[in-house]
């Protein structure tokens, strides 16, 4: 995303348009409307396309922005420039309230909540005395800079499009940062993100606020553009239309929001002028067409127009290679205090009547590779989930370096130096290998969302990317660094997960079936890597079914069967243990 010149060209073209002789004034009005709609759609892109959350209530946030400035500037004579922060804060606060209520809920409650909320607010706008009820507020002053008053569509045009361009750049900066990666990982579920310290409810709330503030900005501009507000443009219908804009343009792309706004505003104009002639009907005919188009679009082109367009352009992904010489400070490791790293003591997990893990005890010492084996359903992955805080234990203790960690959330456990991979690969397939791996270093960076938007995060960011690149090179995938994670083979994706875990700078690495799907040579390379890590001071706990791999590699093996530990010992001892043979091959063997 380092290419800035297309944005500059676009900005120049937009700046020149009003001066082109022969451009009808009506076009400028359309462009103003496109800009206003694009701002809201951009927020939805971040919310829906990137973050996987959906809101039908964005129009209400536009209303908050518009009414705030309308009341303050028209009724109390406050300067519009002072009402701008007020508008943004009011819409942002409204988002905090609704966001806090809904972000912890599963996907579909948020859109439903916003639909009802949007309707409720619409009625509130139209009933409240100080908002002028159905008549709204009129006599809103225009924006002015010195003696320059933005009275007509041609002058406020610049205010609108400066807002669009600045918002687009800030939003793209945000996406291309530590916080942005956390947001982009949201859509693919929260377990992987949380395993690397990302506080997913907070990330969701952040995008929700960002989207609402953009909507509030659009509302502020709208109020000073039309100079009068009434409840109609902030109803449920409008909220649905904004989502339509984002889906049409391409809900995953910031510029998709702008393109979608252009398509929808122009389409609406055309439909409103020609449809009544065609069907001799009255009212709302364009909504019928919109509705049908929306469904058709989801069936035929669910990713929208923008990606379709950019795929047709001569395009090169020019990303600078990260400078791998920049170092991140390493984790402080206790020196020789205790030999035991991880202590699992009578850990137990019950799901209703099923005992998945039954009073299992074992330990992992420093510089040791321990394998956890057992037939399918033995409770290996559940044990992993107990150690990493994805599940909380029913009973028993788990301690890391003597510190109890049972029932701590995953975000805290990763801070203790435990990093993991997953049995079912959990990468964001539409992010590059580098970006996926950099999520592992999330907790080792500090830049916040605001710093990222204005690019004050570059030093921090360079360190994180350098660390990610180093770990990718270490696992032997340097050539695939800029490919999308989803395009790699399953075996390679498992290796990417290991690189991501290594970015934590862990003391203990938990690998869930790392060798599954690897070819013979790749397995040997993986074994060599794990030995090298052990030599460097790291401990590894792995679940694996490939017995040859385990027997060659592990220092010690713990065998589970039906949730119970049935044996523990060196590979040689385990191979001849009658209980293990029975569990694997049956009693008669």
């Amino acid at each position, binding site marked *: 995303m380092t290419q800035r010149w297309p944005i500059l060209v676009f900005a120049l073209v937009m700046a020149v348009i009003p001066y082109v002789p022969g451009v009808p004034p009506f076009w400028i009005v359309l462009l103003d409307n496109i800009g206003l709609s694009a701002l809201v759609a951009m927020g939805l892109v971040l919310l829906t396309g990137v973050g996987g959350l959906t809101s039908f209530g964005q129009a209400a946030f536009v209303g908050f922005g518009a009414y705030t400035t309308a009341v303050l500037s028209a009724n109390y004579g406050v300067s519009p420039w002072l009402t701008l922060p007020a508008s943004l804060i009011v819409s942002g606060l409204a988002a905090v309230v609704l966001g806090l209520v*809904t972000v912890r*809920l*599963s996907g579909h409650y948020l859109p439903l909540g916003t639909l009802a909320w949007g*309707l409720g607010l619409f009625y509130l706008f139209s009933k409240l005395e100080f908002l002028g009820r159905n008549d709204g507020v009129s006599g809103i002053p225009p924006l002015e800079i010195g003696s320059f008053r933005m009275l007509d569509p041609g002058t406020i045009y610049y205010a609108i499009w400066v807002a669009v361009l600045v918002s687009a750049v800030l939003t793209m900066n945000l996406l291309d940062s530590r916080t942005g990666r956390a947001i982009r990982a949201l859509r693919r*579920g929260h377990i992987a993100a949380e395993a690397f310290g990302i506080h997913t409810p907070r990330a969701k709330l952040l995008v929700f606020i960002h989207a609402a503030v953009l909507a509030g900005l659009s509302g502020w501009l709208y109020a000073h553009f039309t100079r009068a507000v009434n409840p109609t443009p902030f109803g449920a219908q409008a909220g649905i239309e904004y989502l339509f804009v984002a*889906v049409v343009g391409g809900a995953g792309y910031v510029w998709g929001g702008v393109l979608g706004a252009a398509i929808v505003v122009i389409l609406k104009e055309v439909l409103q002028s020609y449809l009544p002639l065609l069907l001799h*009907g*009255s009212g709302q005919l364009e909504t019928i*067409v919109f*509705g049908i188009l929306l469904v058709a679009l989801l069936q035929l082109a669910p990713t929208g127009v923008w990606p379709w367009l950019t795929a047709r352009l001569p395009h090169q992904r020019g990303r600078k290679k990260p400078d791998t010489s920049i170092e991140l400070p390493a984790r402080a490791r206790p020196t020789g205090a205790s030999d035991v790293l991880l202590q699992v003591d009578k850990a137990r997990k019950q799901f209703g009547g099923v005992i998945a893990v039954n009073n299992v005890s074992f330990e992992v010492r420093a510089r040791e590779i321990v394998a956890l084996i057992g037939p399918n359903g033995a409770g290996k992955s559940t044990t992993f989930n107990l150690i990493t805080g994805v599940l909380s234990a029913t009973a028993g203790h788990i301690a890391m370096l003597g510190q109890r960690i049972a029932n701590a959330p995953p975000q805290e456990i990763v801070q203790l130096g435990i990093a993991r991979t997953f049995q079912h690969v959990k990468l964001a397939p539409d992010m590059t290998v580098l970006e996926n791996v950099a999520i592992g270093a999330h907790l080792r960076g500090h830049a916040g969302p605001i710093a990222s938007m204005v690019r004050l995060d570059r030093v921090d960011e360079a360190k994180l990317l350098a660390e990610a690149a180093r770990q990718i090179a270490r696992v032997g995938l340097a050539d695939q660094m800029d490919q999308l994670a989803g395009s790699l083979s399953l075996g390679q994706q498992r290796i990417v997960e290991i690189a991501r875990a290594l970015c934590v700078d862990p003391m203990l690495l938990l690998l869930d079936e790392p060798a599954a799907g690897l070819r013979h040579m790749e397995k040997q390379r993986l074994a060599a890597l794990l030995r090298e890590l052990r030599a460097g001071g790291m401990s590894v706990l792995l679940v694996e079914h490939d017995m040859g791999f385990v027997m060659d590699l592990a220092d010690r093996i713990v065998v589970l069967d039906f949730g119970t530990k049935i044996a523990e010992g060196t590979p040689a001892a385990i191979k001849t243990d009658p209980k293990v043979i029975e569990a694997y091959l049956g009693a008669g063997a």
Partner: protein
Amino acid sequence: MGERQVLNTTIMLFLIQDGITNGAIYALLGLALVLVFAVTRVILIPQGEFVTYGALTYASLSSGQMPGTAKLAVVMGVAAFVFDLYVIRRSLHWERVLRSLLLNVVLPALVLGVTYWAAGARAPAGVNVLLSLAIVAAIGLSLYRIAFQPLAHTSVLVLLIASVGCHLALQGLGLLFFGAEGQRGPTLLDASAIVGPLRFTGQGLAVYGITIAFIVALWLFFGLTLYGKALRATAVNRLGARLVGIRTTLSGQIAFLLASIIGALSGILIVPITTLYYDTGFLIGLKGFIAAIIGGLVSYPLTAIAALMVGIIESFSSFYASNFKEVIVFMLLVPILLLRSLVAPAAVEDEKD
């Protein structure tokens, strides 16, 4: 708002009765929403349009007008037939083509024919009710085929957006068919009984009776019958359901058929009591949603109880603050979501996109 009115026992009983009547309708709709969500994962926003279509088709027929919905049913049926043809184009089994033709085209066309006759001949109320139900049922069935069956594999979110698209289109068509003016229909039962200060109309009693019957029937169907369990299995895991021999498309069709009939029936039940406009159904449907959300989109009894609560709260807020009736009812969702969010179960990850 005027001067503050005083609440006495008679008014309170009256408000509760009114709330329960409305609540019963919300309960019916809430049940249909839970049903469709449980089977297809579709959050059926156009449920409100089924209400409007049912009510206004019945009202139009009763006043001797030809409802546009009958034609829409045929047009959508033809579209559904084309979708079917496209899917089976490689192996044109005549049997399947014929079945699709009968179900999607011939049946709505027959209904259209009967509707022409009924509108001209001022048919009895019973015939009008049956015709209205048949028309809306055909629309519901085709809607599933056209809009949702091709998206059946996608996420809840995509289905929800499509659902909103259908709502937009159907509501716009509603305006086209029925105009912006509201309509009322004739009552189904004229009898009434007076108990103490309250007057129970036959219409009101029909509302209660039908709601209770549906709740019990759905509860039994999904809880106890093999087919009901098969429908629920489809929602949890389409592929798994198919592997064990459940026809997932059929499940979706049945869910939409039931939902559209329940919607239309609710509309027919209330159109003699209140004037309905082309967009009233959406608001009524959303109140059903609030009930369904309280029920977590899974529980039928909880949804029914919640719907009664919504009805009573609405009725009391229209007494105390009639201006803010809608605000209060819709904002009710916020504390409910907060509550659900606090008791939300531990991380269960949706493996689907």
